[in-house]
């Protein structure tokens, strides 16, 4: 299983554009020790179509377009887009950086808070990852600049098992802590070498490529570490708590 490609210690504003040129495998399968890890795309395909449900109805005259869907890059039920669609549950917050900070709170020895300048003083990484939205689009080889969540968590002591991302506008989303540690998640401020546009979650958003993209909160303001899992906004509105695209966990019960 290939990890997202990471370049360490870049200062993206000094290196305006780094674009992936060589092919790579899809983003890491989510979860820890999951049977999908090192997934066999065909197995995922079969799982998605089987599962003891009715056998599929053949759609007369439908041929599909396999060419734009390399199976080891695109999870079941997804299609590849070159656009960057936007879906938000509310208005887009516009927060200036001098009014912005990021916190780690909850089950920690000492809450931690970073201003924008303090955050930008931390080691930066550039990552090239595939992202998957539950609304069915996937976007391959997206390039982000930011800070590994490991770096941030390295500054607190915690015995928490879960994390809730929280944002301007009140959005929340939950994950097991193991889903955002070990080089699997970033707090990002750059996309393709530019500041992240507000509609895409700027100034700072989360990036957890192993899960559907609603698990990557836009307009991020903090991480709340918790002993117990606490379903967030979409998780309490019919969407999967786990959200592993390779297992096609879109909705409750998937």
């Amino acid at each position, binding site marked *: 299983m290939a990890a997202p490609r990471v370049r360490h210690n870049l200062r993206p504003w000094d290196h305006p554009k780094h674009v992936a040129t060589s092919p790579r495998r899809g983003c890491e399968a989510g979860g820890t020790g999951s049977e999908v890890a090192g997934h066999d795309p065909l197995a995922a395909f079969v799982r998605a179509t089987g599962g003891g*449900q009715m056998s*599929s*109805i053949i759609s007369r*005259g439908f041929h*599909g377009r396999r060419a734009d869907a390399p199976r080891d890059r695109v999870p079941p039920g997804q*299609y590849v887009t070159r656009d960057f669609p936007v879906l938000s549950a509310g208005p887009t917050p516009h927060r200036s950086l001098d009014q912005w900070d990021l916190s780690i709170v909850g089950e920690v020895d000492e809450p931690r808070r970073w201003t924008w300048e303090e955050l930008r003083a931390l080691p930066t990484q550039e990552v090239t990852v595939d992202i998957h939205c539950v609304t069915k689009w996937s976007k391959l080889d997206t390039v982000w600049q930011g800070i590994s969540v490991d770096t941030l968590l390295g500054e607190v002591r915690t015995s928490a098992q879960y994390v809730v991302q929280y944002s301007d506008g009140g959005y929340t989303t939950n994950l097991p802590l193991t889903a955002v540690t070990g080089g699997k998640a970033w707090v990002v401020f750059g996309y393709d070498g530019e500041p992240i546009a507000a509609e895409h979650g700027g100034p700072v958003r989360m990036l957890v490529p192993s899960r559907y993209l609603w698990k990557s909160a836009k307009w991020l303001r903090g991480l709340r570490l918790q002993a117990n899992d606490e*379903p967030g906004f979409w*998780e*309490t509105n019919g969407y999967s708590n786990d959200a592993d695209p390779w297992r096609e966990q879109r909705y*409750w019960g998937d």
Partner: protein
Amino acid sequence: MARAAVLGRLTWRAADVVRVAPETARASTIVLDVPGWPGHRAGQHVDVRLTAEDGYQAQRSYSIASAPNGDRIELTVVRIEDGEVSPYLADELRGGDRLELRGPMGGYFVWEPADGGPLLLVAGGSGLAPLMAMVRLRAAAGADVDTRLLVSARDWDDVLYRDELQRLGGGGLTVVHTLTAS
């Protein structure tokens, strides 16, 4: 915790295509009968799955454009010229075919008459579909909730449900059109 209230898995259902009716030059409305349909709230969507003969599958999400009405639902699909699924649904699919779908999904952006108003609904292009479900439900329920609907389309011929909206206007519903290509 909300997950405790979870219903069963949203299983794939077979839906019978009653008819596919042109809506505009670029859009068609697919009328479906879904045996065992659990009902939906205005604003919810379904996932549609197509399967080719070799087993290849494609899925897309479509808003339900119709008000709750037994086992019957309507989807409006705008054809994207180089799309994989929408040209099939808009042009190839016809009455008597069967589709697979699951749903309804989405419990957040919904409206029921008991929610009251006033309502300000703003839609561009095919984004009108879920709002149409609300406007149709409002009419079917005889609700007089003060409602303003702003519809943006490329040009007049591209406006979905144009005649119906004209009919439904009044009685507290104001429809305002804005055309971006003229």
